[in-house]
């Protein structure tokens, strides 16, 4: 009896595609729509997990665009603390599509707004990226000037990016009432004071996210006609929820909504692809735990596996030296401090919220 399943590939069936497959290499899991050559100029943005993708690409000495490189005078971990080298510019973590869309629109219009500044102990913070200046700025003028520099550099970035990798992190966000702008982190976590009159909680739905992602795609194409986009969903659960729901529910809802909208974008547009890193980490069909004891940070070897799948799919991974590099991996397994699940080296405002739990 002829039926549409009789001639599907083994990867289409759960038994052969998952139960019996190699759960490290995940053959045929990710078949890219477009190529990434060693000389392709890649930009990354998104939540903490996007920093992982960037590190993996940088390890393969890919030309990762960085329009706001750290000053030479700054050594590495201080640079990271000031938001250098995390992504392709100092926009810090971008957790929601709305945040990215509004940033793109700012780049187009050069808009910088004074109301979008928080204060803490006399220091001034850019509400749209509070974490890139941990000590804050001396004046409002300094915040505004630094933001103008940032936007100018971003124009350069988007005009030269061949492939833009965007990792979707959250649907829960805080909107600034007067300007309507979407903030990366709630007021009062890094700076600013929370008052319900000025800030309101918002949980982006699939439809809103889809509208924003479509607008992002359109805006990016205005900067660079042939730009390609790779969407991924961050497998890192949310630290806390302001939805009133249990955090397991809220986190599953958030990740499901993001995965659903990323999938729909990839289906609709041939210059948008979806990389299933989320699936590799969160599937129960894996050998061994993916997360550390805090069930949020992803074990380094799992991140390595995910990135290997990504790089192999594009044929970018020259296995010899990466194997060698893995051998002398700076985080030796027996380093106890590393293993107790303490927040690994990702810069993540979102996890600051956990510290706030009374």
């Amino acid at each position, binding site marked *: 009896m002829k039926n549409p399943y009789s001639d599907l590939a083994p990867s289409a069936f*759960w038994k052969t595609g998952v139960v019996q497959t190699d759960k490290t290499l995940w053959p045929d899991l990710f078949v890219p729509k477009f190529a990434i050559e060693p000389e392709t100029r890649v930009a990354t943005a998104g939540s903490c997990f996007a920093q992982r993708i960037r590190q993996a690409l940088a390890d393969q000495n890919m030309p990762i665009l960085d329009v706001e490189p750290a000053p030479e005078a700054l050594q590495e971990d201080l640079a990271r603390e000031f938001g250098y080298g995390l992504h392709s510019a100092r926009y810090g973590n971008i957790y929601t599509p709305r945040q990215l869309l509004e940033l793109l629109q700012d780049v187009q219009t050069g808009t910088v707004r004074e109301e979008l500044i928080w204060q803490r102990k006399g220091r001034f913070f850019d509400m749209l990226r509070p974490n890139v200046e941990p000590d804050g700025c001396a004046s409002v003028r300094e915040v505004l000037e630094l933001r103008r520099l940032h936007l100018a550099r971003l124009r350069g970035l988007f005009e030269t990016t061949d492939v833009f990798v965007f990792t979707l992190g959250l649907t829960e966000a805080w909107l600034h009432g007067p300007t309507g702008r979407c903030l990366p982190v709630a007021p009062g976590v890094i700076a600013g004071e929370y008052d319900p009159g000025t800030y309101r909680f918002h949980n982006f739905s699939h439809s809103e996210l889809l509208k924003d992602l479509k607008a992002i795609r359109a805006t990016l194409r205005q900067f660079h006609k042939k730009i390609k986009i790779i969407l991924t969903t961050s497998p890192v659960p949310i630290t*806390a929820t302001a939805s009133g729901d249990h955090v397991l529910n809220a986190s599953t809802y958030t990740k499901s909504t993001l995965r659903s909208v990323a999938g729909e974008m990839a289906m609709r547009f041939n210059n948008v692809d979806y990389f299933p890193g989320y699936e590799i980490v969160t599937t129960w069909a894996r050998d061994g735990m993916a997360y550390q004891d805090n069930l949020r940070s992803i074990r380094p070897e799992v991140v390595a596996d995910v990135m290997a799948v990504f790089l192999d799919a594009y044929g970018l991974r020259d296995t010899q030296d990466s194997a060698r590099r893995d051998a002398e991996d700076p985080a030796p397994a027996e380093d106890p401090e590393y293993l107790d699940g303490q927040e690994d080296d990702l810069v993540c405002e979102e996890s600051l919220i956990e510290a706030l739990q009374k």
Partner: protein
Amino acid sequence: MTHPYEDIPPEGFWRSGVVETDRMDWPGLHKPKFHLTHTTRVATAGSCFAQHIGRYLRLAGINVLDGEPAPKGMGEELATRFGYGLYSARYGNIYTARQMRELLEDAMAGRVDKRLFLTRKGRWYDMLRPGVEPTGCASLEEAMELRRAHLEAVLALISSTDVLVFTLGLTEGWIDKRAGKTLAMAPGVIAGRYRERRFAFHNFSYDEVLEDLRETLRLMQELNPNIKLLLTVSPVPLTATASGDHVLSASSYSKSVLRAAAGDVAAGEAAVDYFPSYEIVTSTAMAATAYEANLRGVTQEMVETVMGVFLVAHGLLDALAEMEAGETAHGARAGSDVDLRGLRALSGPAETDEEDADVEAPEDELICEEALLEALRK
């Protein structure tokens, strides 16, 4: 600095809500919008996982309706094979929201379309519920007449249901373009022949699922104004995907769309609630104990955990424990600190316990045409 997370309760934080919580009872995970009691008339429908829910609700003494009960004298094995007792009527597995919607539309219009009956070896099969007649019908007329009877039973069921528990299974479906209906199974799996001209694969999008769920609710409310809808998402992954993607990715996409839509409908409609069975089974903290060797079937312990959370949240397990303790010295202890393992006592001896370990996982006793797809792999 004041911040909005100050007065968030412990279950709002991942550390206290997931890492440090009791992952058997999941306190605070499910706060029902409307409570089930022993008198609530509950109907069940949906994908294979819903069969678990129906069974355990009955075990817990919930009044689970059956609009098309098996003949009294019929043996359970035969009855199950003919689709009796799986749900609250013989509609078989309803994998997509669209199927549920179209079933209600057909039932309310009394519409039976003869194009939706396909043959195999001269026997006629109802493509909207191919599984309930494993050997098909002798004639098209018999098949159509049976469907008319079924639709009337569905009308009667919905009209007398207080809460419909609907488990969303898939977003991948097969549409008969000519009849404009979504089939339960791809043509050619159980009956009929796959012809591209007539049958089209369709992966329902978030918007479509959302709209189908809202329309399903509206139709049900037309029949029974104060009916409530309790949505869950099945944690059982796809057996196979026709989307062209890898099944792991396709399954993740499918479940994500369903979870997002279910969440939004529940948030937007007072008469709709969402029960997080999907969360409990797939949460990474429980990954090891959740699935059978085929990584698809959910283990009995996990089903019991899920149902334990459900029954406790609805205050049914405690009531039940008193009832049990009163009658017989049953496993379940009386009083509120009921140990969920008591639930195991309810479900009778776990036959699988003594089975030796290396025997192939007990064939999932769920009736699931979707699992047939595996057999089709060349």
